[in-house]
């Protein structure tokens, strides 16, 4: 069996991902991997909307919330409904997709930045509604003791490992779907719309259904992520799905490279690691450093710095710096690079384009 280099890399990455929890072999690390995995899944979904179709969605966490709550309501003591997890996985994903269409259908006529604002508004409305409809959603407490998935008679339990493998399987599915979509007629239509909507429409692309498909597809991924994440956490509450989460996922895309699947995965793993390990470790390092210094105003100030409180400052700086200096992300997709730099008039951009053209000629 021969594999393309891309598939070979993907298989290798997947094998590494399977091996990872056994290398560290501690619960906290596996827990981190599972959470990071959920965000990879979310980022892959947002990438379809923003990266492929060029529609800026600032309320993406809303679909994550909808998926989570769909699962929580249908598999918990809340209403005494206990549907099987594997069915709900697709139900949650479907419900999220339906909401994607419900939001998209009336709003997709809007220009890019208006669409961003509408999605932002939607992203605010959804968690607030969950918060306020306490008779259905448990209000600020959310819904707890969610059902654990059962796999061929095997209950998942409280060990994070099976959840990690579940999320990994969903990521594999998502990568496969996203990759096939990108090369499909629909995927090329998305990119055509992203580059120039008017031209795409005149080439016979139905922009409305194409954009709706992107919204639905992106939302369905986050429905899957929501379902898996909620079952791992055994709890949903409205404060997990704020604007911060939407921007966190967007920052993953921006960092890694919008429109590029490996880039998006890299970006989400990097930011998750930054969030979970680098900031606390960095804080400890600073505190240790402050301790070693002779006591004074500076070392006192250093001792009080808590980098984990600055996480959103750091995401903000990442967004700004990446947009200013490397809008194509760490691992750029060729098309994206060309698009982001073609409008730039400086010589560097011209050179990048030249490179791209020579690539095309080759």
């Amino acid at each position, binding site marked *: 069996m021969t594999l393309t280099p891309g598939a070979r890399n993907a298989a290798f990455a997947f094998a590494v991902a399977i091996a990872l929890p056994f290398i560290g072999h501690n619960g906290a690390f596996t827990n981190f991997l599972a959470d990071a995995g959920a965000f990879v899944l979310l980022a892959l979904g947002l990438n379809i909307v923003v990266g492929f179709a060029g529609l*800026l969605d600032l309320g993406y966490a809303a679909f994550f919330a909808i998926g989570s709550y769909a699962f929580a309501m249908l598999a918990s003591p809340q209403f005494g409904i206990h549907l099987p997890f594997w069915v709900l996985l697709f139900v949650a994903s479907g419900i999220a997709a339906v909401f994607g269409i419900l939001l998209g259908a009336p*709003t997709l006529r809007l220009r*890019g930045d208006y669409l961003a604002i509408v999605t932002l*508004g939607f992203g605010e409305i959804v968690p*607030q509604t969950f918060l306020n409809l306490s008779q259905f959603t448990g209000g600020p407490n959310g819904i707890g003791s969610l059902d654990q998935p059962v796999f061929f008679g095997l209950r998942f339990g409280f060990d994070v490992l099976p959840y990690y493998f579940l999320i990994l399987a969903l990521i594999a599915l998502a990568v496969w779907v996203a990759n096939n979509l990108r090369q499909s007629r629909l995927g090329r239509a998305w990119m055509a719309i992203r580059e120039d909507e008017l031209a795409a429409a005149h080439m016979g692309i139905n922009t409305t259904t194409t954009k709706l498909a992107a919204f639905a597809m992106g939302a369905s991924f986050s429905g899957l992520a929501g379902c898996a994440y909620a079952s791992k956490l055994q709890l949903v509450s409205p404060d997990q799905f704020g604007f911060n989460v939407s921007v966190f996922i967007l920052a993953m895309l921006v960092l890694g490279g919008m429109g590029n699947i490996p880039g998006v995965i890299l970006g989400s793993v990097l930011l998750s690691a930054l969030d979970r390990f680098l900031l606390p470790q960095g804080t400890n390092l600073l505190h240790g450093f402050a301790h070693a210094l002779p006591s004074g105003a500076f070392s006192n100030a250093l001792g009080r710095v808590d980098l984990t409180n600055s996480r959103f400052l750091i995401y*903000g700086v990442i967004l700004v710096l990446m947009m200013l200096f490397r809008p194509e992300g760490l691992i750029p997709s060729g098309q994206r690079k060309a698009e982001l730099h073609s409008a730039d008039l400086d010589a560097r951009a011209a050179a990048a384009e030249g490179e791209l053209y020579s690539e095309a000629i080759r």
Partner: protein
Amino acid sequence: MELFLQQLINGLSLGGIYALIALGYTMVYGIIELINFAHGDVYTLGTFFSLAILTLLGVSGVVTGPALIAIVLVTIVGAMILCGLTGVIIERLAYRRLRNAPKLAPLITAIGMSFILENLMLYWKGPSPVPFPDLLPKVQFGVGAVTIQAKQVMVILLAVVLMIVLQNFVQNTRLGKAMRATAQDKDAAQLMGIDINTTIALTFLIGSALAGAAGFVSGVYYGSTWFFNGFAAGLKAFTAAVLGGIGNLAGAMLGGFLIGLIEAMTTQFIGDQWANVLVFSILVLVLIFRPSGLLGEALPNKV
């Protein structure tokens, strides 16, 4: 009925604050078609700057007589200058380079800027609400059972006065004309000898200064603020700008007062936990059904 009238007064004063913020959104959008996400945070920064100035002046409670007018003027002008400069710096650092980039890039940068400002304020004042001194004496004007407080008069008055000054500036002065010309067509304006960069910087200066004024007023009005205050307020002000017709100064004013009224009425008659949901629903509905807003004209689809 009295309840309704009371909420009308409350809504109008709330709306005055939104209107002042909305002017900045609408000006910036009008000239470079950017939703300046960081604008709401500049507004919160205005409250913090005002607080710093008041601390510097040694004011921590009610002031009366001519001293009150002097202190209010010094604080408000100081906050306006500091916020205006902040706006100019943000434009220079973050947005100018991206003026010709695809729309997505400056918008994402603006979100990043907003996060940066919020977290700088978090560092400055901490995560809990920061108290703001009661400057104005507790004077109330009663009409039947309806009371109007001094601070409410101040908000509405200030919003209207600044609005009139701004309208005059934009309509009648050379710089105002340059702004309008730049908003209409940057290239043509440049050919007419208008310095685009200066004009855009000026727009940010004025818009952010108005947010600074709103920040001072909101400090007096609410008696406290916190670092994250600008997010919701900014969104509501943006809703106001869209509702009135983005790019239209009078529209922003009208939208601001309407949003304030809607919020006050919702709080009173439906429940305050639904106020935000309702305002954002209005945003979504206006954008869908009348994206040009109440006073705006239909924008041609720029290709």
